[in-house]
Structure formats: C-alpha cells, structure tokens
C-alpha cells in the first residue's frame, strides 16, 4: 500500500529493454555536449576567450575569462566540469546496462558500448586538459557515499582514456552519422590524446613528466591519425572551405568526423537547437553577410532577420590582422555587413569603436561567421560544434610525422584549401612542428581548441599577450569550489 511506483518515469528498473531504449540512453549521454554549459558555449569560454583570439573591449556582459579574473567559484569552471561528468555518468549507465541486455543484436550492442567508451574518454580528455587531476568515476553514482571518488592523477586518467578508446576502436564500426561518433572518430581522438602526451612531454608542459617518451607517443599518434587518413574513404578534407561551415552541409560533410546535431527544428530548450550565431553577431537587429567567402553580391542573414546578436565573443582585431590577407580563413571573419537588398550597411574599421553612428559603433570587431544559419527558425539555428574535423587529424598527422613527405603533404593540403602556398621544404623538425602549430591556430580558431593547444606546447604565458594570464591557472584550471568542498582533494 505504501510502495511507491513513479508514474511516467523510467528508471534502471524498467528501462533498457529494447534496441531503441539502448540507443536513446546513448544519445542522452551525447546530449550534454549540446548545452551552453558545455559544448555550445563554455567550451569556447574556457579555451578561446582566454587566448589572443578574443578581447573584451570593456563592453560589458563579459565573462571573467576575458581577463583571467577567475577563481574556483567562476561559473564556467563549475558548469563545464559538471556537464562533462553528466555525460560520463550517462555513458557509465549505458556501459553498465546495455552490456547486460540479451535481446539486442550483438553488432548494435557493440556499437553502442563502443560509443559510450568513446564518450567517456572524450569527456575525461576534456577534463584532464582543463583541470588536470580529477575524480575518476567508472560507475553511475548510486548513493552519497559513492560520490566521494578519489582524485586520479593525470597519468591514471590518461591510461583510463586510452583504455576506453582502445575498447571503442575495437567495438565500433565506421558509420558516419551527425551527432554520433564512430570508429574513425575514436582513432582521431586517440591520435589527439597521444599527440597531447607527446608535445606536452617534449615541451615540458606542467603535469606531463611521467610520459615515457615523446617520440613513442608521436608514433602512436601518427599510427592512429594514419588510420583516419589512409584507412577509410568516408571522411576527407572538404575542398571548399566555406562548405565546412554551411549548416545544410553538416549532415554529409566529409570534413566532420564528430559534430554535434543541434537542429533549428529543435523543440524544448536551447541545446536542442543552437543559439551560437547570436553569440558572435553584432547587437543590430538584422545583419546580412555575403553568402560566400568571395562574392559580395548575394547576401544572406546571419540568422533569420530581426534577431539581434549579443556580441559575446569579440574577436581581437590584432588576431584578425595576423591572418595573411590571401588566407581564405581570414574571410571567415566578417568585415562588411549589408542590408537585405545587398546594399552595403557598414564596414568594420578599428575606428568604429569611437564612432557616433550607432551602427558603426556596434561594429568594432570583425565577427566570426563559422556559426551562422541563414535558414534559422527565429533564433533557433542548426549552427553546430565542430568537435573533431578532418583537418585537425591531418595536422595531427603532420605534427606527429614531422617533416616527412606525408607530413608535408597533409599540412600543405590544409594550406592549399585555405588558399595559401606550400611550406618551405627544408624545415628542421622543430621549424616544421612550429609551422604545424601555427597552422592549427588559424585552422581551428574559434572552434574550442585555443588554450588546450597552447597548454600542450607549454606556451600559455608567452602566447597570451593581450591579457594577463593568472599564472596559477595557466595550465590547469582550479577544480570547482563545489567539488573541492564536497569531495576534498588530499
């Protein structure tokens, strides 16, 4: 009589019966990535804003990360951390429950479990790069006491990540689908993990002394990147740079190894759809931009007209100037805006900051157009996150391989697509890697890699020059205060 059975609620006890149950639980594990606390905003706040890519211009509404005025209570630190673990907890639930399912085809079961391993590794990789030593949860937490997981050291976390990714590689198949990972993504991710270990060890980045040897790590990075570059034919470099960022192309783009799947048709809350374009765009009611990187005659709205932007991510004009003029990637930053009829509305200039014309006054930096959706449904867009791109793997391969034929080939492929010439052919290994790192900066700008890239080559303080880095957090952000309070580190 007093027994409780919740109505309309699934739980461990009545779920995980069908194939669809398993898939939906898996997708639930992917879902945190779509949220502003994680992929769809704070990833950029933690990785891009603290670097030279962005500057606040003291325009208000800014996160503390613009000035590194951060502490263990900084909200991005808490929510990024929390959402990574949300995804981990859900992946753990899939691993625990789907493995027990009897009435599901083995091939599917393997795929689902492989993806869960991939996701768990993906999240721990985010965590270890952001915070260093973090608690390691391998099971769904069932009680308050279970929650007190010890902090694993960095080495232990990496070995856990690598083990999960090996499992993922062994269990998954190559099957491209927007919003999910496959075997290729697992190879790409593990190559990035090895690359991080290699370069961190090589450059003496704090926390990576324990790594056995950087060459060994580079070799493994190269092997796995090679699996992506040479051992499949579904993914490849997208020849047209603009197409990478074309929302209608996200679904089938060769470039996208792992991409989120927010949709402008999304119901519910932000996260089911994306609101990223407004984060970059100007605070003007309707902004039109050229529809391609070259033509200026055809224009398209950033998103459906009438929606003004929040000007949250403000490109540093100096960073814009670092791009070579012929670099097509420079045009991914908008310097001209138009009226709906195609007539010019305003052009960016550094002087706009002092303009008395309200429109010019708003246009004080060239804004990023990597996240736009001219077909948006009001503010709801399909502007997704490019979590793992083919170019990133190509450059990883180049970095790992060094100035070899293949190394040159892949970095030059990326450069050519951007409209740049080939690298000089006689670079030393150091010069070559330097060139790769520079290429990574331009290729992956504004895509949530900035600080992680600087950390793994031990250059945070040297390279971040437009703001004062808070030295104690340069390499590892503080564990959020709430975690420290409730699960003290000793």
């Amino acid at each position, binding site marked *: *009589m*007093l027994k*409780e*059975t*919740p*109505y*309309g*609620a*699934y739980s461990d006890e009545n*779920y995980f019966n069908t194939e669809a*149950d398993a898939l*939906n*639980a898996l*997708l*639930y594990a*992917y*879902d945190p990535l*779509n949220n502003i*606390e994680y992929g769809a905003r704070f990833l950029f706040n933690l990785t891009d804003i603290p670097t030279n890519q962005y500057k606040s211009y003291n325009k*208000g509404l800014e996160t503390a990360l613009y000035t590194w*005025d951060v502490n263990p209570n900084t*909200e991005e630190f808490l*929510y990024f*951390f*929390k959402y990574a*673990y949300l995804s*981990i*907890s*859900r992946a753990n639930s899939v691993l625990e429950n789907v493995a027990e399912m009897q009435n599901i085809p083995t091939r599917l079961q393997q795929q689902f479990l492989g993806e869960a391993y991939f996701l768990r590794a993906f999240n721990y990789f985010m965590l270890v790069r952001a915070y260093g030593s*973090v608690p390691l*949860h391998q099971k*769904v*937490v*069932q009680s*308050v006491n*279970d*929650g*007190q997981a010890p902090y694993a050291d960095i080495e232990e976390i990496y070995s856990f990540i690598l083990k999960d990714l090996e499992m993922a590689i062994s269990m998954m198949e190559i099957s491209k*689908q*927007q*919003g999910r990972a496959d075997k290729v993504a697992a190879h790409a991710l593990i190559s990035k993990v090895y690359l991080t270990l290699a370069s961190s060890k090589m450059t003496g980045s704090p926390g990576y002394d324990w790594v056995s040897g950087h060459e060994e790590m580079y070799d493994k990075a190269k092997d796995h990147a090679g699996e992506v570059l040479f051992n499949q034919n579904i993914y490849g470099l997208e020849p047209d740079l603009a197409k990478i960022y074309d929302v209608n192309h996200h679904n089938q783009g060769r470039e996208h190894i792992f991409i989120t*799947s*927010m*949709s402008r*048709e*999304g*119901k*519910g809350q932000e*996260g*089911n759809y994306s609101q990223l374009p407004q984060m970059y765009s100007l*605070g003007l009611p309707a902004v039109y931009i050229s529809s391609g990187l070259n033509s200026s005659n055809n224009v398209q709205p950033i998103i459906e007209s009438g929606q*003004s932007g929040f000007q949250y991510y403000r490109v540093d004009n100096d960073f814009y100037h670092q791009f070579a003029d012929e670099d097509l990637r420079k045009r991914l930053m908008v310097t001209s805006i138009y009226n709906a009829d195609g007539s010019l509305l305003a052009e960016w200039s550094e002087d706009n900051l002092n303009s*008395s014309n*309200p429109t010019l*006054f*708003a246009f004080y930096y060239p804004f990023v157009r990597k996240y736009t959706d001219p077909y948006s449904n*009001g503010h709801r867009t399909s502007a997704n996150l490019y979590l793992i791109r083919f170019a990133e793997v190509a450059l990883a391969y180049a970095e790992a391989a060094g100035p070899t034929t293949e190394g040159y080939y892949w970095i030059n492929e990326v450069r050519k697509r951007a409209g740049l010439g080939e690298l000089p052919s006689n670079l030393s290994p150091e010069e070559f890697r330097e060139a790769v790192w520079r290429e990574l900066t331009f290729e992956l700008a504004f895509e949530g890699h900035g600080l992680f890239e600087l950390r793994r080559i031990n250059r945070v303080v040297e390279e971040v020059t437009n703001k004062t880095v808070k030295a104690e957090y340069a390499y590892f952000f503080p564990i959020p205060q709430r975690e420290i*309070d*409730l*699960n003290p580190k000793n």
Partner: protein
Amino acid sequence: MKNLVLLHVTHMTKLFTHVFLIQCFSMSLLFAWDGNAQGKKIEDVTLQVSLLEADIEKAFSTIEKMAGFNFVYAVDDLKQVPKISIENDRQSVYDLLTDISQQTGLRFRQVNNNIHVRVAPATALGNIPDSGNFIDNIEVKGTVRDGYGEPIPGVTISVPNTAIGTVSDMDGNYALVVPEGSTLVFSFIGFVTQRIAIEGRSLVDVVMPEDMASLEEVVVVGYGTVKKSDLTGSVASIKGEDIAQNSAGNFEGLLQGRISGLQVINSNNDNPQGGTTVRIRGVSSINGSNAPLVVIDGVPLGDAGGINAVNPNIIASIEVLKDASATAIYGSRGANGVIMITTKKGTTGKPNIWLNTKMNFSTFSDDLDYWKDPLQMIMLSDESRENADLDPLYIGQKDPSGTYYPSREDVRSGAWPYHTNWPDYVFRDVAVTSDINAGVQGGNQLSQYIVSLGYYEGQGMQNKDDYNKISLDLSYEHKIVDRLTVRTRSGFFTGKRNINYGMEYSRNLLYPVYNGDGSYYKMNPQDFGNPVALTNERINKANNLDGYATLQFDWNIAAPLTLVVRGNARAGTGSSNFFNPPKYTHGGDLFDGEGGASSSNYDNLTFDSYLTYSKTIADDHDIVAMVGANYESSLSRGLHTTGRGFPNDILKDENLSGAEIQFINNSRTQSVLASGFARMNYTYKSRYLFTFTARGDGSSKFGDNNKWGFFPSGAIGWRLSEEDFINNLDFFDQLKLRSSWGISGNQGISPYQTVSQFGQDFYYLGEDEHIIYGVGREIGREGLGNRYVQWGGMANKNLRWEKTSQWDLGLDMTIFGGRLDLTFDYYYKRTSDLLRQQFLNPSTGFDRVWTNDGEIENKGFELGLESRIITRGKFEFDAGFIFNRNRNKVLDIGSQKSSGYLVDANGVKYEPYGGGILNDAYLNVLAIGYPVNSFYGYKVDGIIQDMPSNPTKNTRAGELNYVGLNPDGTLNPDARMIIGDPNPDFTSSLNLQLRHQTGFDFSVLLYAVYGNDIFSTRKLERASLQQYRWTGENPSNERPSLRADRQYFASSWFVEDGSFLRIQNITLGYTLPSVKFLQSGRVYVVASNPVTFSNTSEFDAEVGENGRGGSPYPRVMVVTAGLELKF
C-alpha cells in the same frame, strides 16, 4: 414525553460524540448540578409565546413545538404546580424558563436538547436525609451579590449530598436550614460556583464572580472536542463571525492579526485570488512545507496558504493547534501546526434565511511613484550616462536596439507630441469586488440542515485582472435511530481567474500607446512591454471546479462508548489556457505565437474511524480515551499541451493542432498515508489534567526503509483555581498551568523522491528527432536568472520524516471578575532530520539528492489578552491584544562534506536559499547560527565622498563605499557577510471594539510587525528618490550618484528596517432594530489597510517571508460596505 419512560431519554453522549459542535454551555439553570450540555443554547433560541393562566404541560408543549427542545419530567411531579402566564414578548428560552421558574419554583437542567424538569425540594426540616447521626440544624441566611454589588436572584443554594436547597429571591436574599458544619454551594449560570463552609455562622453573604461563558467553551481538537477548561495543549480560536466582515480570495488572508501565534503574510494583496503565507511558531523546515495543515470538519484539506475552496462565510469557528500535545494527533503533518475549521451547522426550529452582501472598493493606499516630468527624466538619464562615459540617449536618434529617443529639445518644445500617463492604461480607478452570501438553515429534532451559497466577483487593481468564484455548501444531519446519527456535508466550488498581472506602469512616458494605424506602439522590435497590447492581446486564464462530500456516522454504542465512522471524497478539475501573440509578447515573438492548454484533476479520499470511551469513575476520575485509524490517498493527474509557431494569431489558443511544434506532457502523482492514533485524557478532581496521544503514520513518500513514523506526546495541566490556596486569594477566577512535550512530523515533500527517475530530452540524428532518456533529470534551476539546470534523480531509500519535538509551558488566567482573560505560552521547538536537498559534488553527475540532515530551532512566546473593559451601561467596550515573538535559528545543516554548505572568510557556514537578485546568484542564506533566510552580501558604509587619487569604477566619489574591496577596486567576494534578518522580532495586534446600546458598534484592528529587515530593491528605482542622489553639489551619504553602467550587488545599502504599524481595519456598524419579518440585521462599513506607518523605501512594507521587497505599487486599501440580514 408524557410519561416516565422519557425520563430515561437522557443523552449521556457527553462531549465526544459531537465533534461538530464547538461551543456550548453547561446549562445548570437554576439548579446546582454540573451538567455538560450539548446542543443549541437556550439563550440563543428566541420565541414569542403568549400564555394566560395556562397549564404547565401546555406551556412545555408550546415551547417544544416552537423551539425544538424536549421537556423531560414525571407527570406526577407537575400536579401541584400552579398555572402560569407569559407575556407576549419575544424572549429567549432562557428568559422564559427563568420566568416559569419564578412562577412555579420548578427548576430546569439542559442536557443536549432535553430540558429536565425538577420540582424544587422543600425547605423543610423533614427533608433532611436520614443519616446515622443526629445533627443539629441551624438556619443560615444571607444575600448573594455579583462583582458589582448587585443582588442576584435565582441563585441555587444547596448542601452537597443532601436534598436541602433553596433559591435566592428577587433581592438576592436566601434562608435555609442546614445541618451544622455543612458547606453551602452557591451556583448560578454565568457565575463561578462558590463553596462556603458555614462554620457556625448564621449569616453568610456571598459575592459570586462572573464565570465567563468561555470557561465552559468546548474546543475542537483532532478527532474530538474538549472543554476549554480541561485543555492541556496550546489552542487558540476565533469565531467565524469575527472575520466575516471582510472579503478575501481565500480565508487565510482574513486571519492576519486575529489569532495568537498565527502569523499571516499577505505580501501581495492586489491578487484578487488571494494567496498568503501562513506560519505557526516560525519556519521549521527548509525544503518541506512550512504551512500548517488545514483540517475542515475533521477532514485534512491541505497546506494553508491559498485555500480558495473554503467560503469564509460558512466558518463557525477556527481553532489553531500550536503545541505538540495538540498537533501530535496529526502525527506526520502536525509539525507546522494545524488549523481546524468547523463549519456552521443546521438548527432546529423555524427556518432562518440570511443574506450577507459586501461591496469592496479598492484603491491604492498611497501614491504611485513614476516619472511624470519627461525633462527631469531625460536630465537624469543624461547624467547617469555621462557618469558612465556613455553618450546621451535623448538626441533624436535610434539606439542599436532600434528605440528612437527624441531629443531633449523636441521634448521641451513639444515637437515630440507623446506624453502617456501609463497608470491610466494599466490600473482600474477603483477595483470593485462583490461578495454575496445567502443561505437557509433549519430543521427539527431529528434533522437539521444548512445550505449556503457564496458568490464572489473580485477585481485586481490591474485592468482585466479578475477572479470570480461560486460556492455552494450543504450540511445535513439526521438522527436515524436513537443512538445513531448520520451527518453529511457536501458542496462544490468553481473559480475563474483571468490573469493580467505584472504590467509596467512605469513605462517611459514619451512613447504613445498606439501607432497612427491603430496598432500598438513598440519602442523597438524587442519591446514586449506595452501594457495595452498585453491586456488586449494576451490570454491567460485558469478555471477550476471542485466538489466534496462527507458522510459520517456517530453511533453511541453504549453510554460511555461512541464510534465515529467517516469518509470524505474530494475531487476537482482545473483547466488553464494561454496565448502569447507574436509581436507583442516575448514568447510569442520568439516562437511565432505560443499557446497552450492544460487540464488537471485530482481525487482525494479520506477514511477515518475512531472510538471514544468517556466515563467518570468515583466522581473524581474523568477518563476519555480515544483510539482510531485513518487512511488517505491522493491522486492527481495533469495534461499539458503547448503549441509554438502559428500561421497567424486569429484563432489564438483555439487551434493548438495548427502549431508547428506541439508539446504534450502528462503527469500523475499518487501518495498514500495510513495511520493509527490514540489519545487518553485523564482528569483528577477537575484539577489535575493529563493528556497522552500517540500516532503512527505510514507514508508512501518515504524510503523503503523508513515508511513508518511514531509521534507521541504528553501534557499535564493543573487548574490552580480549583485549589483552596488559590481560591482563598480571591483574585483568580480561573488559573491553569499547563505543560506539554511531544513529537510531530513533516512529510511535506513531493512524492517519488525516494525512487530513481530518468530524465528526458530531445536529440536529433539528421532529420530524425529522438526522444531520449537516461540517468539524471532536471529538478530545478539555479544561478542568476535561473539559468542553470540542477540535476537530480538519484534515489534515497533512507529518506524519512522530519521530526519536530516541541516543549510548551502555558498559563491560562481569568481575573477581575471575568473581565480579563490572559493566555501565555512559551515554547521551544526543535526540528531535526530536516528534509533537504543536499548538494552532491558535481563529479557524481547529480547536483542534489533529498536527505534528512540538519536542525532548526524556534523558540518564543505568545501572549493573548481578551478583556471586557466595560460590560454594562450604555457602552460595551472590549479589547484584545496579541503579541507573538519567535526566534528562529539554524542549528545545523549537515556537515560541509555531506551537505555542501559554503564557509566564508568570516567563518560563517551557509548555503544559498532561494534565487538570485541583482547581479548575485543569491541573497537569502541558511547560515548556521543565524535565522532562516538571513541576507548575505557586501557591507556598504555610506557613499564615497572624495575622489581618491587612483579611482576605479567602484572607488570613485559618488560610489557605494563597499567595505573590503580588493586593492584593485574590484569586489571581493570574501568581504561578504550576513547583512540582515527578515524575521521580525515580534508581531502584534490590538483589537478594540465599542458597542453602544443604540445598536452602533465601532472597532479598530491594528497590526504591527517589528524588527525585521527588508531588502528593498525599490530603493534603487523609485523616481522620487532620485533627487537625493550624490552629486558634487549634493554630496549625499545616502544614495550613490547616477551611473548607467553601475552593477549593483546584494549589499547592506539595500537593507532597511521593515517594521510597520498598520491600521488593518476600521469598522463602523449599526445593528438594525428587529422588526416583524426581520430577525436581525446589520449594516457596516469597513476600511481595510487605510494607513500604514513604515520607514521603508518600498511601496508596500509587508513583504514575503524571505524579506525581499519589490512590490511595484502600494498596498491596496479596501472600503467595504456590507449588509447582513437574517429573516
């Protein structure tokens, strides 16, 4: 009733069979025996009888027919009785019987509806009982007077255990012959019985203090009633008629300042539907409910605070159970106290029809405060922007948001033609509420009924903000056979609310209402604040229909044993619909129109049954024992639909299937409570009172390991006034000490917290939308603007009751010949195992899980005074005074590790409690050692007066002088501290009532709250306060300069003394002289909230429990004109 057989029809059911009756009087009329009578009062039943030289039996049967009383007598006894005459006057049965008594020497005693008739014993020696010893008889005489020295006729003087007795004459004189050494007992209705040993005297004059009827008042406690004089717990009560003169959407709102120990907060009295916060003895729970349980006619109804379904006009009385001895009988729901409502019952005799109508006229009790002079507004805007290094707005251009700001010159010259006084468009001049109640009651000896109909048509101050309700209640009882009575009560209630609320009357006056083409003016594409557009285009309605039925059997199995079996069903439906049109509303603009419809329904079933055994053993031992069981189930279901994206807004919410995106959501919650309970009252010699109760409750809401809870209590009382050493002081009419201890519980959390629940979301794979499920679900939001989801869904199988142990020490006293009643209670209440959602470390994947952890204490005292200062003469003057003081303190909120509280630089251990404010994620905290809801923030020490050498944004002249800034001038979160306490030091009320014999009455109720802090956000905003800002010329130390880009944080600058004194009601009434068809009538006028004295910057000093101000307009003052007629 013509023969002796009827003598046996004595209803010994005594008190406990009649749970529905709250007060009646022991009618030891003209006779010295104690009799605990139930039924209607013979003083209350009036008739008009005209008899000339009539036979006494004829007189009795006449009265029987008209008044519904039965006379019980032996026919032989009346043979010698002389014939009587009664004048043709309307008078009460009481007066009639007094008259008859004087004519015949007969004496009467009422037991229930029976009036027992006895022939007065002769005052002859021969009537002395035959005792073994021969005792000398002596004659004693004297005069009986009251406290004013007036002689009292009709006083019965008797000698216990003998048949000797007499009655005082018209001059209060008596004489009788008694055995030497006897004790005389003087008794008379309305006076305190006096026992006096003659000790050889032959002249014994006696002064009889008035025995205020309240001494024999019967109060309702859970599953029974008890004589007020026998009460050991702390119970306060109020009569329905005392609150019926005012109107409110819900009855709780009427109780403010009326009942000792009951705190009522009406923080937003503009809502025509009402909605109040009700507390008894402070806040003892942080996540469970703090509202008292409301029980109506024995059936639990739910938490106090917004009970619209109870028509205040059907309330006969309200009892508030406060201490553990009183509340423990409600076990797991008693911790917050219990409000017991008893409804009016039918009567016997000729049907009464009554009609009460009220018209309420509401206006604001103070001026609105908003910009009326555009040039001044512009000047201050410019100043504010200049201080922020921003260009002025009013330059005749559009700003980036698209708002066109006319230039200052155009405004000054009148070239900009618009000047809108927005309050004219937002508010009604006068909001009119009608409240009409009518009913009929009547019946005969076997059946009684009462039907009442209420109609309420309420208006809020804002246009089209309305609430209407209709209620119909029927109560019927019937004596099926001699010992079995059936009672039913049923009714329905329907309410209709049109919500048009929170409109911005302070909107910029420089913009028009309409565009030239008649469409609504928008300042910019994102402007969704045009109140006229919202009033006309937005839809937001809610309706409900509720019904209930109770069936109860009272079976008097044998004389001492009574069984009550009762079942109650309540069910209702609610529906609501809304539409946010595109263009004029934010939601509508975002989604191309957004509309929805919801429906919900609930079923609650209650069954209870209890057996009462009541017996007096060997005269000195009164025992009442009760044992019972209870089962309650409640089930509610909901269906919610929302559509977004409509092709046009023609059909509004009428065609949700036309929406591009449709959401459907259904829910069902069910909980069960099963209980057993028992109570034992034992009274020795009417002096020493003992009460023990116990209840066992099993609830489905708790974890598998903790379904059942046990709640015991015990109380003792000592009626000192029954002791000779007190009696001899000749000071106390009544004096009682009582003390109680017990445990009660709180189960005020939603069902399903002990089981794990998955969450749900959407996920897209290409074009395919998947509805996804998995571990972890949204349980709330946190952070500024409630932006961040909190994740829960982890089960806690050990979740159990919140336990409150409470100790109470009370004193009841009546002095000055019954003119002053005083009730005092000191209590100490400690709640442990607090039901709280403890934080989990975020790496668990969950934010919070329900747990039992922490302690809160409340201690304080309550003082209630009732005095009848002038009781005779042309005037009657009564005064009531209530004083409540409560101290609340958080003792423990778990360990930091297990619960997640924060520790600040000062060592204060706290946890945020409630949502964000200004630029802070929270304001109220639970801090160990501090009261619940304490304010937390920065300390501000005046305004910075001199420009420092190295100014920063926060350290310039004219800025708030924050204490403990970082060296670089940024705010230092470590400098935050406890900056205020929203809990009052005391609340108090004074009620004065004056009646004149011409029929006029006048009363005033004052209500005061003292010593609480308010966090006043209005302080920043009120237009009229801007003139006091800091400027170079006016270096104020009170207000900072104006600066458009200043960010405000929770600081002591906003904290103000929230004390207020309010004239709550002033009533002037006139009782109409009774005429032929009209039994009684009254006209009255009440002014509610006419004046409030306070020092806050808020419009309305009465704010919610968390101390946050913010009401956008002053308290509403209501003038009520009322008419009560009874036919």
